[in-house]
């Protein structure tokens, strides 16, 4: 066993994701506390340009044409022998679809414990101590690993990306592809159709969730957004129901927004949603559930039915 930390590099379309830099930064801090090294794991067709994006990092690179884009089976086959052999104290991945697949697959395949939805990782007596979100953010769990080694999937925004962006030259160790598994084949990326508005560029977002009740009530929120000179956005269930276009969805599988004002109306604030909006300059939340996690990130909150508050607010702004 070592005190080293391995970090899975997630990249898409030739670009390293923001979340990768967030966990790289934390990995370096933890490795230096533990007396180990933080090393990036990079799987790609051509590691060079991606390594350059990473900067001053020690990188283990596996290059193969079949690794141009992510595939769960290809990544698992390639990574399992390396993680087994290197015996890291920690393997970090982002809590994305890619991270879920790789972390869960490796944990099941090689028996390393896994802590999901991690929001904080520290060392206690030299061993990882992880805080995880549970029950949609209503409970926090502090967990350790059996044998003090394990895998973490870290939620977006848990650590600043800046600490992971270290200018300098990468030190790349290329290792041969240990195994091939082509049972999951990447076929292509599908980009979202451009929407009528780009919610990432709006300064005022009036965002609506399940508390809206029914589709007809969306109109009330549209009126409020018009009164504020903003646009309507939503949490996932509203987009799933087809009440608003997918391009208006805020959160993990939608867009990450940073408006001057985010009005969260009838949104409970599941971790997947908070991931997309917690950096807004001013967050005002209205929800009927006083224990809704949205109140944990809001600057102002009110426990009320949005169907009562929204028309009243529109009237006062009108």
């Amino acid at each position, binding site marked *: 066993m070592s005190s080293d930390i391995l970090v899975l590099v997630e990249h898409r379309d030739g670009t390293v994701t923001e979340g990768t830099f967030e966990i790289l930064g934390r990995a370096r801090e933890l490795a230096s506390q533990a007396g180990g090294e933080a090393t990036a794991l990079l799987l790609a067709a051509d590691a060079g340009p991606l390594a350059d994006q990473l900067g001053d990092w020690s990188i283990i690179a596996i290059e193969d044409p079949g690794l141009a884009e992510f595939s769960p089976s290809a990544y698992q086959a390639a990574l399992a022998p390396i993680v087994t052999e290197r015996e890291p104290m920690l393997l970090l991945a982002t809590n994305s679809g890619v991270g879920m697949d790789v972390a869960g697959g490796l944990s099941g395949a090689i028996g390393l414990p896994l802590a999901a939805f991690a929001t904080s990782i520290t060392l206690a007596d030299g061993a990882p101590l992880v805080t995880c979100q549970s029950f949609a953010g209503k409970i926090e769990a502090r967990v350790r690993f059996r044998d003090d080694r394990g895998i973490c999937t870290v939620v977006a925004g848990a650590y600043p990306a800046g600490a992971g962006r270290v200018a300098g030259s990468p030190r790349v160790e290329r290792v041969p592809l240990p195994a091939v598994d082509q049972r999951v084949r990447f076929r292509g990326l599908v980009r979202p159709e451009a929407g009528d508005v780009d919610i990432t560029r709006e300064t005022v977002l009036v965002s609506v969730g399940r508390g809206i009740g029914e589709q007809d009530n969306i109109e009330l929120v549209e009126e409020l957004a018009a009164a*504020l000179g903003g646009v309507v956005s939503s949490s996932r269930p509203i987009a799933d129901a087809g009440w608003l276009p997918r391009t208006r969805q805020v959160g993990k599988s939608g867009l990450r927004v940073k408006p001057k004002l985010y009005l969260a109306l009838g949104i409970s604030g599941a971790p997947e949603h908070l991931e997309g909006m917690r950096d807004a300059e001013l967050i005002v939340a209205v929800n009927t559930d006083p224990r809704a996690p949205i109140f944990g990130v809001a600057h102002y909150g009110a426990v009320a039915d949005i169907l009562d508050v929204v028309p009243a607010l529109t009237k006062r702004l009108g």
Partner: protein
Amino acid sequence: MEFVVLLKQVPDLAEELEIDRSGTELVREWLSYVTSEWDEYALEEALQLRDLAGGTVTCLALDTGAVDELLATCLARGADRVFKVGSFERPPDTHASATAFAAALRTVSHDLVLVGVQAIDDLDGQLGPVLAAELGLPHVSVVTHIAAGADGTTVTANQEYAGGLVAEFEVDLPAVLGVQTSREAPRYAPVSRVRQLMKTATIEALDGPVGPGGGLIVESLSVPETGGHAEMIDGDAAAIATRIAAILAERGLVKTGAAS
């Protein structure tokens, strides 16, 4: 095609969660349970795919004491067969669930295993990839738009990423997919039909060992201070609206000319 759906119940978040005196468990005796939201999507997808491609839908749930209603609901919605697996005094973690389901799946034929992409209580990872690793099957998480291939040996599915970007994958069967959402909202099953099925339906039982679990040691649970951050506004809707309008006006966030 043989579709298998794995489902579980989770505490209803509409109710307050309490931590017990050990500090490492929820107080479970008063909790009410609901079917995990993403498992409902997995079932709906399986039913839709069966109706398009033919075959059967089999639903499995670990027997944690009260899964008959869950499984009867699966039948009421159109599942062909249901099984409860093993016997568990408390809800097992993801890895222990995977061990039990993997054992059961050795006796239940399956081309495509659908699970909810996640559950609100899975601390030690998501069931799909952990189970797939135990079974030696390929897996993809966070999928939508599942479609069966023409020759019945593959499916295609989309994996969702941030910003609305998706990757399309082709997956060899048998495989495990973690379903993010279904093409249509989960269908409704009349309560009277569920009640009737609970009396008359055959819910078969399968062995599922109680595995050692994922090796995650819970040191403590806590309730985050949700109110600790927000300044709460009291009063009725009119008072709340007035206060919010004032806050926005103070910060220059109302349109010029608007009243405060």
